[in-house]
């Protein structure tokens, strides 16, 4: 039978299975191969908070969505074209994500009575048989059996055989989407270098899947997705957490400082600790502290000694660090604080994404306690923001919080990585030693930007004491003087606000400089907003998009920019945080679009919501 080859501009595939089925690995390998083929792409891994929720149940489903194409890809896709369902729970949990007419590849071994019951299908229900899936193209394959058959001559145990079934799926999809297998084969060889028979088994199953696509009569169509017209240059694929790690290593390297990273494990920030602990040869010290408070205070101690102190966590951990962050504000030492946000409050939904820590970042400390706040807009942009946060912290002697989130942390995209020589300089000077007869050292004397000097122990003649009690201007001595307190509060705020002179002005991402509506976003919603506004522009709407990387302080021209539009619309994955800041700081009636479901915006729901606001609605919950 002649198989046809269709060229497509973009495809979204969702791999779903039990959390023990290796769907994250399958998705990552497909992603790497796809990246190497030159497509643009975005990914969205989703997994349960439990390490192994009961096998076969809906809470135990793990999925990985990949959106790739030959055009600009900025979101992991609202809906998918292909759903791989390794069992009935995976189908149940993910069917709503599949577009009508989409393709289902179902592992029939996961649809036996036991699995159907675990997935809470009734005794006479089987979606593969009862017409539930009419309107989709369904491929029913006993992947488990096919895997075992392809390994029958190897003499492996039941578990080893069973475990490699994800490679069959991967091979099949490689065939369907015309992907080469080399990169995955070399990955498997190196991953299982100490267990060559396991490597061989996985490669065998991978190839079996590929050849099954070719020979089985059921698959009649292959798809080709051409290279994306990305900006010329050298690319790699990267997740947000990995990009953060590299941004921190790069800032330590460029500033020639040791980097001290104090952290306590928490989802979804832990991968930054894992990543940095590998790079000790760059002078990186990682400290797995006893708790969040030790993590941040140890980093402050390191900064006092002249290192770049960095701490990381997710929302609840940042709450614990609050008192120490106030100390860092008071000591006026450099400190980088990474908050990989997740859905809250309290422990919330650890593996789901949200942008709800903005108020915590800006205001979440006792007293008047100004910090700088930055937010990356995409996985690769985490590199830039980690670097910027370090630069600002070091050059302005202030704690800087980076608001990443679960979606950025685990999602990935192609990255046109920089050369070290492309990176901005980070200028660091320590206070010089003084002779015995020199005038007394003033630890809180400031330069023209209101920044005090970094006076590290070991420097003769500048011995001094700092602490969390209010500082007397210049001397840094403890002071309860009312006039001094007001002065110092204003100085610390002004020092933070002065950073606006050292960050880029806000640029418009898309649209005209004047118009009906400016859609103003921040952080990880960039891809959805850019795609949505792009489509609205094509439809003829007078909309524009600006996206904030710098939130405290705001870019200097932001107020003027917003005045050029009849409306400012702020979509956020929260109940309205930036929109409140914009209203209060600029006194304009900005309107909010909110989604609080632990998931990113879909492009279509965003377009609908923007239109509703433009038609006069006060606010929209998407």
């Amino acid at each position: 039978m002649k198989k046809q080859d269709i060229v497509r501009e973009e495809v979204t595939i969702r791999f779903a299975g039990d959390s023990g089925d290796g769907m994250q690995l399958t998705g990552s390998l497909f992603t790497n191969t796809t990246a190497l083929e030159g497509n643009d792409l975005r990914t969205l891994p989703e997994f349960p908070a439990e390490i192994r929720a009961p096998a076969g149940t809906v809470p135990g489903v793990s999925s990985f969505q990949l959106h790739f194409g030959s055009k600009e890809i900025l979101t992991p896709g609202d809906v998918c074209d292909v759903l791989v369902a390794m069992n009935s729970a995976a189908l149940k949990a993910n069917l709503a994500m599949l577009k009508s007419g989409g393709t289902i590849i179902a592992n029939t071994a996961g649809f036996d009575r036991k699995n159907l019951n675990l997935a809470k299908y009734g005794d006479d229900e089987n979606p593969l048989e009862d017409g539930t899936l009419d309107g989709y193209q369904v491929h029913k394959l006993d992947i488990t059996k096919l895997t075992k058959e392809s390994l029958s001559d190897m003499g492996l145990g039941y578990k080893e055989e069973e475990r490699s079934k994800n490679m069959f799926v991967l091979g099949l999809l490689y065939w369907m989407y015309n992907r080469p297998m080399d990169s995955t084969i070399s990955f498997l060889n190196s991953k299982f270098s100490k267990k060559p028979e396991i490597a061989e088994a996985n490669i065998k199953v991978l190839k079996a899947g590929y050849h099954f696509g070719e020979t089985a009569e059921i698959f009649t169509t292959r798809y080709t997705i051409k290279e994306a017209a990305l900006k010329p240059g050298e690319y790699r694929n990267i997740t947000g957490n990995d990009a953060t790690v590299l941004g921190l290593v790069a800032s330590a390297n460029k500033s020639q400082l040791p980097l001290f990273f104090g952290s306590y494990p928490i989802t979804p920030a832990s991968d930054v600790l894992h990543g940095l602990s590998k790079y000790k040869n760059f002078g990186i010290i990682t400290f797995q502290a006893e708790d969040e408070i030790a993590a941040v205070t140890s980093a402050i101690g390191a900064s006092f000694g002249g290192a770049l102190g960095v701490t990381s966590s997710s929302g609840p951990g940042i709450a614990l660090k609050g008192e120490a962050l106030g100390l860092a504000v008071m000591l006026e030492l450099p400190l980088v604080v990474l908050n990989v946000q997740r859905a809250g409050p309290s422990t919330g939904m650890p593996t789901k994404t949200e942008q709800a820590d903005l108020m915590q970042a800006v205001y979440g400390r006792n007293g008047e306690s100004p910090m700088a706040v930055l937010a990356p807009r995409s996985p690769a942009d985490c590199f830039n923001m980690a670097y910027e946060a370090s630069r600002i912290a070091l050059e302005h002697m202030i704690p800087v919080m980076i608001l990443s989130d679960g979606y950025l942390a685990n999602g990935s995209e192609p990255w046109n990585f920089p050369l070290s020589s492309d990176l901005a300089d980070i200028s660091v000077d320590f206070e010089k030693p003084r002779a015995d007869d020199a005038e007394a050292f003033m630890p809180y004397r400031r330069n023209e930007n209101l920044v005090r000097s970094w006076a590290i122990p070991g420097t003769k003649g500048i011995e001094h004491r700092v602490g969390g009690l209010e500082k007397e201007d210049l001397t840094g001595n403890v002071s309860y003087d009312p006039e001094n307190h007001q002065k110092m509060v204003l100085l610390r705020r002004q020092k933070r606000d002065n950073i606006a002179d050292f960050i880029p002005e806000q640029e418009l991402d898309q649209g005209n400089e004047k118009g009906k509506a400016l859609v103003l976003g921040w952080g990880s919603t960039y891809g959805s907003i850019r795609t949505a506004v792009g489509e609205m522009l094509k439809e003829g709407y007078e909309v524009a998009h600006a996206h904030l990387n710098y939130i405290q302080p705001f870019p200097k021209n932001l107020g003027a920019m917003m005045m050029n539009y009849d409306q400012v619309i702020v979509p956020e994955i929260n109940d309205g945080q930036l929109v409140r800041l914009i209203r209060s700081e600029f006194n304009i009636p900005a309107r909010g679009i909110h989604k609080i479901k632990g998931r990113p915006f879909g492009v279509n729901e965003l377009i609908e919501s923007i239109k509703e606001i433009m038609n006069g609605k006060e606010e929209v919950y998407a």
Partner: protein
Amino acid sequence: MEALKTPTKINTFLSDTATTDRELDYSSKDFSSDQDVRWCPGCGDYTILKQVQNVMPDIGVPRENIVFISGIGCAARFPYYMETFGVHSIHGRAPAMATGLKVTRPDLSVWVISGDGDSLSIGGNHFAHMLRRNVNLNFLLFNNQIYGLTKGQYSPTTPEGTTTKSSPFGSIDHPFNPLTFSLGADGSFVARAMDRDPKHLQQMLKRAHEHQGTSMLEIYQNCIVFNDGAFELFTDKKSRPRETIYLEQDKPMIFGKDNDKGIRLDGLKPEVVELGDNWSEDDLWIHDEKDSTKAFLLSKFFEHATGENGIKFPRPFGVLYAVDRPRYDEEVIRQVNHAAMSNGSPDLDSLLRGKETWTVE
């Protein structure tokens, strides 16, 4: 003290300042800052401050290489009064802050000043972890068995039954024994001194400085306002000989007004004996700082206030336990330096490039 082998701005900067070879000629006054000391008149903190200032010229460390870090409490004001580097940090967190400083700057002599509430209540977690890691710093625990700065509530070392502002019917909290706690957390140096024996306190401060690892020195400190006389039995001239015993390495355990009492061990059971007809010095327990089991017994001369023969066990002062074991800060630097040697010099460009790339023309 090994620095980071990876060249850093700090290493270069400090080698330029070249202060370490200088002849040091300090007096205790050189360690006194220009700040007025503001403890209550008669507070035990004054004498501790004075002894620390007296000892500093003898430890052979340039003043700029010394850092005092404290948490919160009366004792925590200490760094302001020392003409060294210092940080008055936040509730209970000084051990964590000192850990971050010490692992990045092993060249510094780091002293942590804490109180019983600061180290054993709000900072109990950090205190325990500092001890088990064995960070090379000196931890001075000022114990006055009361909350002073917050004005008189019971602390984690206040004896049961004590009436305070927050325990009008008597405290029902079982107190921590700081030395047992420290030994339990595998502290490598555990010692006790008191504010009213300045000479002995000085010796203990020097021992703490010399010890490589976390040196935990508990100092009994009289709070004249909220808990006056808590340690009077051990400090009063009359009762002191009967109530205290000074530990000396390889020396028999002798105490009493006329050195007429001793402690012997019956297996692992200590007992107080009268020297004379039945018992001589040769029968007594010989103190050995390296014996953790016996250090634990000594730390328990605290709860067992009365021996079986009706004689009270004296409270031990001195070094209960001191052993060498790997220091956390040294291990951190060793790992970093090992990685620097075995992975070659760091190449940022190759790190940014990663393993798999593709080129868009």
